């Protein structure tokens, strides 16, 4: 296993001039240093940092793995019709338990070549625009939408900024609440901030037991608050990024259990657990009148309000 990581590093170093690769090398080196190659918890993961490692586990199933396990007739659709086809976002028509649906998700790569093709699962604006195009297409033909979330975040690069990363994400956030079809979100790996949220606004949000969802990575949080990466484990804890925490806040609706040791130990069993909840959610949502569906989608977001109303109303001017 150790040599496997070293091999990956050596391979990546050949691409080291290309963007994002250096970060991946750094991450692998840290994994190596921490002796955490192919991290295997002995019991159920309880610490938030263990879940971070499981969510990023190199063998963890990716979106296309779940697509082939859960859907039939998957027909991939490409491109945003504006700029390009982003490999970090996949999507297409498919059939789920006999009914046609639209599937959209982040895609990470398994080997070095795939990682570069998928840009480590970090979409550029054209990825979000492709996702939105497919979702609009789905709404037009009344196909339910299933999204799969697994990204370290939207890509922070020069081209991404030039082509309007912020605008691309923002537009999805405004359009998804309006989609006139049921939307079910499955967060199965890393839910990296706005880059995850941009395809994660829906009627039901399901989350795998060891997936994470956060406004910032534990590493970045640590470097902002402590000015180093050494506090990432503590940062993971205080950010409350586990499925259990988020269910408590009402941010996600259901926690989907994983097989012992994590999803990668048994893709079939994990997919079966997802199928069960996905099927129930889609059945429930398809029974709702459209206006009611949209109203509930909005109210679900509107309820995400945690504040206190302090006395002493002050009028100015």
């Amino acid at each position, binding site marked *: 296993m150790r040599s496997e990581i070293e091999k990956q590093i050596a391979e990546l170093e050949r691409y080291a001039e290309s*963007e*994002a690769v*250096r*970060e991946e090398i750094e991450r692998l080196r840290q994994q190596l240093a921490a002796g955490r190659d192919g991290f295997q918890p002995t019991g159920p993961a309880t610490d938030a940092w263990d879940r971070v490692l499981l969510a990023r586990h190199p063998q963890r199933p990716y979106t296309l793995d779940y697509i082939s396990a859960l859907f039939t007739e998957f027909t991939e659709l490409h491109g945003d019709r504006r700029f390009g086809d982003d490999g970090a976002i996949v999507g297409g028509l498919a059939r789920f338990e006999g009914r046609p649906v639209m599937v959209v998700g982040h895609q990470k790569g398994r080997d070095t070549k795939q990682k570069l093709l998928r840009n480590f699962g970090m979409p550029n604006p054209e990825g979000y625009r492709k996702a939105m195009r497919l979702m609009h297409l789905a709404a037009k033909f009344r196909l339910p939408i299933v999204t799969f979330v697994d990204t370290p975040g*939207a890509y*922070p*690069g*020069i081209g*991404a*900024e030039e*082509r*309007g*990363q*912020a*605008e691309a*994400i*923002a537009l999805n*956030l*405004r359009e*998804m*609440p*309006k989609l006139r079809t049921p939307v079910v979100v499955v967060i199965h790996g890393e*839910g990296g*901030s*706005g880059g995850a*949220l941009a395809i994660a*606004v829906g009627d039901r949000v399901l989350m795998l037991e060891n997936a994470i969802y*956060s*406004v*910032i990575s534990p590493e*970045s*949080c640590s470097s*902002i*608050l402590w000015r180093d990466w050494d506090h990432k484990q*503590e940062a993971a804890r*205080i*950010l*409350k*990024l586990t499925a259990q925490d*988020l269910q408590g*806040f009402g*941010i996600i609706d259901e926690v989907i259990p994983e097989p012992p040791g994590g999803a990668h130990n048994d893709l079939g069993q994990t997919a079966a657990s997802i199928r069960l909840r996905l099927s129930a959610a889609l059945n429930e949502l398809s029974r709702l009148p459209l206006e009611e569906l949209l109203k509930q*989608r*909005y109210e679900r*977001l*509107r309820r*995400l*309000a*945690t*504040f*206190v*109303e*302090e*006395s*002493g*109303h*002050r*009028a*100015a*001017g």
Partner: protein
Amino acid sequence: MAWFHKNKQPLEPPKEKRVQTEGLWVKCGACRRILWKKDLEANLLCCPRCGHHFKMSARARLEMLFDHGRYVEHDAHLASSDPLQFRDTKSYRDRLRRAEKATGLKDALITGEGLLAGKPAIICAMEFDFIGGSMGAVVGEKIARAIDRCLAQRHPLVIVSCSGGARMMEGAISLMQMAKISAGLARLDEAQRPYISVLSDPTTGGVSASFAMLGDLNIAEPGALIGFAGPRVIEQTIRQKLPEGFQRAEFLLAHGMLDAIVPRKELKAYLARTLNLLGAWDS
């Protein structure tokens, strides 16, 4: 050769010099000239020499935009409940208390209702001095309520952004405010009520990736830093120096992300004119 060896003690670093005129003079961040603060304030916090736009507090912003500086503030009593019980080197509650003391605000945004060139409008202004203008549940709720008011009273909405993004100390709850506000703006959009987003320096992260980029018009102040990722994060990722002017308002205008760059002096007139042209006050 003893004269080579100085026996003197190392020089004491000079004690911090306290300039008595502190508070009266400020240095322009762009042209480095020393400016008399009164001159600067009389010029809407724009350098009289080079035109550099200084950050403006939320209060000053609303006073500048509303007629005679008069407006009614809404939802001023909303405050963060520290939902994560967040504590790093300091507790989030301490940070909140300090920010409140420094700004006199309970969170990083003020909603005002008043007259803009004689016509009713709702304007939200963000306060950078409150934890970097970051967006948590309070900012989210205040904007959601401002949108509700615009829908109910058919007023146009203006939001002046000045923020580093989502507030880390409220975790995924702050992330969700992006979705919540954007869903509200979708309603405003469908009701055809005009919304103008004014991006001031800086507008980045979760704020730019939600409501700040969703205006019917997106306009920015000259020189404002606007982007999704902060420049430092991009530099660390790609290991390159960023080009001069990258992510400045002028760069965004050139890349088609903004409708216009509007100097502060012209902002009020610009808002009044464009809202009028959009039919914001037609009955």
